[in-house]
């Protein structure tokens, strides 16, 4: 009986203990966010079940030890090969990422817990760091007693149950953990604030956001977003994954282009799938646009100078015209802000909003700030093409410590500024601009030498000798956030205009600490621009590329100046001459000119040639002027103007050729050849007439006949026009035109060929303009002001005659 009681008691106690245990376990589980039984993953339909092995090669389900990924994955894959052929080896030098190539789950599972891994590494728990990634998977739990493998996840033999196998190729979300902002959900509006950029290096440095969502659907306060009905990144919109372009170098499904000879577009030979799975290279490729796109096919129907554009302009220049998210502009790592942070200034977000007066930090921008975005700066990349970049300027202390020159780290700097978590008294005294005994973010500024010296002195006290501030401007290339043709730069004037994007400077910093001029770190780029200061603000001025003559942007300044002077002088000259003529005509009322007689001077062909040439030249001068200075007539389409100019140019050339043939065939060419004998004295005579006689109403010095309708000055001028000015203009014009078909023409005489050709074309255009003014004026010097023009229309002119024999009837 008693035994019965005891057993009942024991049983009750046992039940109570078990219940307590279960309750505790449940509580623990709830505290940890609950153990989850994941649904079987549709993303890894083929991966077999496997055992997680510890460093000794024993299943962790039995040993309870941390998993060794190289041992685990090494059961089938060549883990040694993978870790030594991995792009991410580089990352292993960064704290928080060490041993990254062995943390397989970080990139190959859904919802990995990278933060847990980082925390484990930071706390020195390196053994569990790689396993910690599995915290969200239901395989591993963290309990009060430490890390615990969930027995439910494993079979009796220590293999993972099928439902827990979740291995797939990296998704965008995997890459996003470290690289940048990725937002795949179309329905939830994308929002960003500065805290979201903490682990988003690519976004932080460039403003690139990978999302298929339309910018108009974003929850951010992006200026003009209601018109931005395009995705942040067209490739993300079209369902591409990061690894589609950044793919494993020996993946059988990835195309390899670079090593192919010209006559192949595809390499059909590839490793057997099994061989690849054994040794998958983790060196990730960097595909260029051309790996998938044929830019020539896409642009040939409308983009003029295709080869020149392709040779000098990276795809991204037009297809990533605008960044819609903020990116870092300046990192001032010389100061410590009241909240202990580095002073960060973002571009692409409204400056006024960035650091409200009295704030503790400069870093914060929130979703409610206005985001105008920014235009990337265009620099010549390694291939020499202009390509978009963001420039990040960093200011930091460099000092000597233990005989080595090093950058002063954040911790040491904090020590110097705020030894006990609070600004040192002398720091407060020196920086407290408003004298309230407190420092705010905008007061912490190294704007005087005294302040710089103070911090340098405090650093010296910490063992950092010779501390001085160094500034570096680093370009970050922009390849993502690509937009489709409809939203790409299509307005030629974005580059072909005085406000051209090419060569446009980019702001670097609103001020430099104590006037330090940062240096440009253009490693690998072909851009050696300059950091310039204007009103205290630092800018980067990209290098002017002498090879490039960007029509509409470039001009040879002295040519334009000279041309303009000549043109204005001629205009003034003819006005003065005309004024004098009118004045004297009034004064003397001279009954000028002698007897006149109608004479047939110009054949129909001559007149047709003349007027057609006039129309072409006038059109060419006008369109050329606008092409040369597109912003003078903002509303006109550059593209159509260039087209009209080209057609008119060809009309001029063809007309010229026909006219030449006509004049040679008929012998009329003789009219243009000056008679050498007495030419000089005859010219003096003509000049005297224009300078004197014309005012007095004297008759023209030379009698006009069909064969002798040009006076000596005219003969010489027209000869110049027809043998030099127009041919030169036509040759240079055709040359510029030809460069679109034969790009060799653009470099025929060295890289600056086009600058010369275009310069001559412009100069000659000015001269032709001068000729037109003088020519039109001189047509008014006939016996009536319109007589000459009338003659050129009808062919007949009332010519002055000395005697009847002088006139030759046609």
């Amino acid at each position, binding site marked *: 009986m008693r035994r019965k009681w005891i057993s009942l008691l024991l049983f009750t106690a046992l039940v109570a203990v078990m219940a307590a245990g279960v309750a505790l376990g449940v509580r623990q589980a709830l505290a940890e966010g609950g153990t989850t039984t994941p649904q079987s993953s549709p993303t890894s339909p083929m991966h077999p079940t496997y055992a997680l092995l510890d460093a000794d090669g024993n299943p962790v389900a039995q040993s309870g030890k941390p998993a060794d990924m190289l041992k685990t994955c090494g059961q089938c894959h060549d883990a040694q090969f993978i870790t030594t052929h991995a792009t991410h080896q580089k990352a292993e030098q960064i704290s928080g990422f060490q041993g990254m190539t062995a943390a397989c789950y970080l990139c190959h599972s859904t919802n990995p817990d990278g933060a847990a891994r980082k925390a484990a590494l930071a706390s020195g728990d390196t053994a569990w760091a790689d396993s910690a990634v599995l915290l969200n998977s239901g395989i591993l739990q963290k309990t009060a007693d430490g890390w615990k493998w969930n027995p439910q996840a494993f079979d009796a033999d220590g293999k993972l149950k099928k439902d827990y196998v979740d291995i797939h190729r990296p998704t965008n979300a995997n890459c996003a953990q470290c690289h940048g902002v990725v937002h795949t959900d179309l329905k939830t509006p994308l929002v960003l604030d500065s805290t979201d950029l903490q682990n988003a290096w690519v976004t932080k440095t460039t403003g690139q956001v990978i999302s298929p969502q*339309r910018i108009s659907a974003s929850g951010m306060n992006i200026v003009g977003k209601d018109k931005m009905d395009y995705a942040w990144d067209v490739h993300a*919109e079209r*369902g591409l994954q990061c690894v589609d372009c950044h793919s494993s170098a020996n993946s059988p499904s990835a195309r390899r282009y670079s090593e192919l000879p010209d006559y192949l577009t595809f390499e059909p030979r590839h490793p057997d799938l099994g061989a690849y799975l054994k040794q998958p290279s983790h060196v990730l490729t960097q595909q260029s646009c051309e790996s998938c796109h044929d830019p020539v096919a896409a642009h040939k129907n*409308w983009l003029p100078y295709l080869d020149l554009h392709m040779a000098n302009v990276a795809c991204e220049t037009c297809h990533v015209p605008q960044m819609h998210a903020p990116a870092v502009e300046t990192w001032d790592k010389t100061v410590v802000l009241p909240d202990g942070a580095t002073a960060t200034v973002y571009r692409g977000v409204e400056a006024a909003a960035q650091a409200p007066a009295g704030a503790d930090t400069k870093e914060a921008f929130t979703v409610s700030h206005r985001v105008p975005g920014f235009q990337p700066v265009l620099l010549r990349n390694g291939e020499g093409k202009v390509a978009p970049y963001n420039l990040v300027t960093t200011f930091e202390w460099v000092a000597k410590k233990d005989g080595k020159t090093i950058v002063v780290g954040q911790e040491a700097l904090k020590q110097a500024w705020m030894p006990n978590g609070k600004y040192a008294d002398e720091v407060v005294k020196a920086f407290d601009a408003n004298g309230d005994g407190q420092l705010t973010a905008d007061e912490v500024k190294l704007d005087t030498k005294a302040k710089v010296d103070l911090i340098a002195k405090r650093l010296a006290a910490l063992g950092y000798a010779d501390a001085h501030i160094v500034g570096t401007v680093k370009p970050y290339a922009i390849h993502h956030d690509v937009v489709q043709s409809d939203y790409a730069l299509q307005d030629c004037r974005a580059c072909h205009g005085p406000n051209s994007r090419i060569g446009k400077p980019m702001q670097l910093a609103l001020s430099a600490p104590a006037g330090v001029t940062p240096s440009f770190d253009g490693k690998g780029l072909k851009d050696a621009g300059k950091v310039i200061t204007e009103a205290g603000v630092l800018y980067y001025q990209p290098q002017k590329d002498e090879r490039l003559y960007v029509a509409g942007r470039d001009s040879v300044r002295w040519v334009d100046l000279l041309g303009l002077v000549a043109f204005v002088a001629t205009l003034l000259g003819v006005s003065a001459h005309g004024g004098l003529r009118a004045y004297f005509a009034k004064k003397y009322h001279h009954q000028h000119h002698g007897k006149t007689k109608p004479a047939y001077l110009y054949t129909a062909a001559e007149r*047709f040639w003349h007027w*057609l040439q006039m*129309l072409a030249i006038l059109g060419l001068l006008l369109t050329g002027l606008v092409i040369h200075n597109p912003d003078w007539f903002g509303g006109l389409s550059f593209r159509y103007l260039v087209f009209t100019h080209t057609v008119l140019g060809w*009309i001029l050339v063809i007309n010229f050729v026909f006219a030449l043939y006509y004049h040679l065939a008929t012998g009329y060419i003789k009219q243009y050849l000056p008679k050498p004998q007495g030419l000089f004295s005859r010219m003096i005579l003509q000049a005297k007439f224009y300078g004197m006689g014309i005012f007095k109403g004297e008759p023209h010095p030379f009698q006009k006949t069909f064969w002798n309708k040009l006076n000596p000055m005219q003969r010489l001028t027209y000869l110049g026009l027809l043998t030099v000015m127009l041919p030169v203009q036509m040759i240079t014009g055709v040359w510029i035109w030809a460069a679109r078909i034969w790009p060799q023409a653009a470099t025929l005489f060295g890289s600056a060929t086009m600058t010369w050709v275009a310069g001559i074309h412009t100069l000659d255009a000015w001269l032709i303009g001068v000729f037109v003014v003088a020519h039109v004026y001189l047509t008014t010097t006939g016996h009536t002001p319109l007589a000459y023009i009338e003659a050129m229309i*009808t*062919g007949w002119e009332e010519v002055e005659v000395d005697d009847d024999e002088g006139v030759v009837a046609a």
Partner: protein
Amino acid sequence: MDKKPTWLLGLVGILLVVIVPIWALWPKPAQPQDDPWAHLPKHAPHVDHSAIIQGNFKTGQDVTKTCLQCHPNAAKDFMHTSHWTWNSTQAFNIPGHDQPIHLGKLHSFNNFCIGTQGNQRVCMKCHTGYGWTEEAPTDFNNPNNVDCLICHADPAKYGRGEYGNPAKGVDLLAAARSVRNPTRANCLTCHAYGGGGDNVKHGDISSALYHPSPDLDVHMGRYDMQCTDCHRTEHHLVKGKLINLNYTVNPKDQVQCTDCHSNAPHKDARLNAHVQSVACQACHVPETAEIIPTKTYWNWGSAGQDLPQNHFFYLKIKGDFKYTKNFIPSYAWFNGNESKRYIEGDPANIGGITYINKPAGSIDDPTAKIFPFKIMHTMQPYDKVYGYLLAPLTAGKDGFWSKFDWDLAFKLAEPHTGLKYSGQYGFTETVMYWPQTHMVKPKEKALQCADCHGPNGRLDWQALGYPGDPMEWGGRFDTNH
């Protein structure tokens, strides 16, 4: 010097030499875009009838007589159309039936209020005619029975009550004087309220289209287009047929997006490649019922109980329902015709799903495209002995809506439907497909790639017959897979 004509000739020649090459060589846009506006019909200019129409109108028929004095053919033309006949002009060969069969609201069943027969009091509110009585249909051959006003009068001045007669208090003279081309408001008076309430039936046609925002419907909202701009009308025959009441539809008789838009309307060739397998509506009608929810489930079985009543959840006369707002359509292959149509007296699929209608088409049918549908699920009555669906007398005298007696309602319906009632009834599940084709969204609100493609897409590719997402597995016309 009579040389004038010569130099004028020269001038013309010179101008031609300059202008002709510029004109001939002028850069053409890569892809000539069709101009949809060029295809819009021109409506006859409005004639203000307020001074023309005189008279003392006692009945609707009085008004019609007056109309016919000046428009003698109007009623004759109109009486050939299904707006009047409530029956298809064509008889269809429907599987399981030896004789061609006409479909129409006059007798065909649906899975909302089930049938109109015997329920003239309420249903004929939307028939375009007068003269219905409790006992008998209207005289379909009397032109005076045509109701001109329902389509042509300002709806603010005209409305219809029981049996389709002008509602009490309507000033028929004022209504008659307000006539004009039908506006959206005229069409919506009936078409938005099918199934017994606003947007109950269609999902894509609701009172929200009276004054739609540009994002609700690009045609009616952004451009203020009228129904008749797409549903072009000649001799009172309105273009466009609802598949549910036409087993097959000749594409000529259907309103098509391509009536105005080109077959390759996108600038992007990749999007244009979709056109051969995806209906415009699939992307441009991404959701419907945004403002007014639509009924997606109806259980007649719970009707007649004294439960708390609410338009959206339970009504004693109708049973319980579900409404859905921001309705996401279901997608199916659709070649414009039906593969199934339930005919009165057909055996119902008891215990399973009886399809009142089902779109025709499959992945193997090159004329079929993926099309958005609202799928309506209903538990509706059937005869346990005869095995066919039953249409109760509801609005009619002593019908279910007044007596709440199913047996009586089925018995009273016998002479109207011709279907014998055995005395035992049950409820069985039926399904109807309703094409979602209105509430067209502009391109900036249309679906994006990831809405269908990729891991979270809304299409069930395998159910549609693809091996997998065609973005990865290739489309049905690809030759290399």
